[in-house]
């Protein structure tokens, strides 16, 4: 388990999600693929945080000041905020899908063209 392998797994999951977003018609599947993309980004953020030393610690690894040490976990903070925004996004997205389904009996994104003409 090296850093490059973790990054490659994250990239593969991100690209599977991207493929789903591009090629699927159903809005719920597009939201699920979007969640996969978020997860790929989260994996790479956490892996960066685990394997890469921040610049403030590179010069002197024996320092134990809290200000220098806590920036080891910036990737964790980033992924927490990504998860928060993903939760808000999926709640709103599913609400919009249900509202559209109620009026059009359809959750196919290629058939939703109210604003087109």
């Amino acid at each position, binding site marked *: 388990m090296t850093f490059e392998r973790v990054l490659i797994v994250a990239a593969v999951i991100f690209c599977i999600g991207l493929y789903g977003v591009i090629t699927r018609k159903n809005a719920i599947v597009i939201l*699920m693929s979007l969640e*996969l993309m978020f*997860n790929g980004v989260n994996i790479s953020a956490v892996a960066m945080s*685990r394997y890469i030393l921040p610049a403030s610690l590179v010069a002197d690894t024996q320092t134990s000041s809290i200000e220098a040490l806590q920036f*080891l976990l910036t990737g964790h903070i980033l992924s927490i905020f990504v*998860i928060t925004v993903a*939760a808000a996004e999926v709640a709103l997205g599913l609400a919009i899908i249900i509202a559209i389904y109620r009026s059009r009996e359809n959750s196919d994104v290629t058939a939703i063209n109210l604003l087109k003409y």
Partner: protein
Amino acid sequence: MTIESSLIVDVVFWIVSFVAIVSAVVVVQSKDLFKSALFLILSFFAIAALFVLLRAEFIAVVQVLIYVGAISVLIVFAILMTRDTQIANKPNKLKIPGLIIVGFILGTFFLSISGTYWVTLPENGPQNVENVFSNTTSWIGRMLLRDFVLAFEAASVLLLAAIIGALVIVRE
């Protein structure tokens, strides 16, 4: 870290990433929407295990609580409210261009990951760094309420706005 334990970590890493990638493919390719949602949950679990391997226990627990516990339930409810879920997952006309675009982006990722000289932390890092990673929750709490407190409060406002927005949108 001894050789045996790192071998075990390697094997677990391969199993977990295999499960995550295969179930992600099933999510995208399966015809049945409900099957996609269940494999999405499996993928979330595998990614949570990957977080545990990366010494991010707090993120793993958050992943299980929010993704597996809340987001999947929301998605399953949305699927139950729509009809024809057995055949609902149809591709659009962009299959070939999508494959080309995704292949191009994935190739770029591979080239840039393998071509970069990463200065990584050794497996047995300095003692103070290891101390941080053996106790991530308190460090995350300290950072969230000190350096990132503005983003933390903004996230709570965002969640409130999302709740109100979702209620307004789905109201009859």
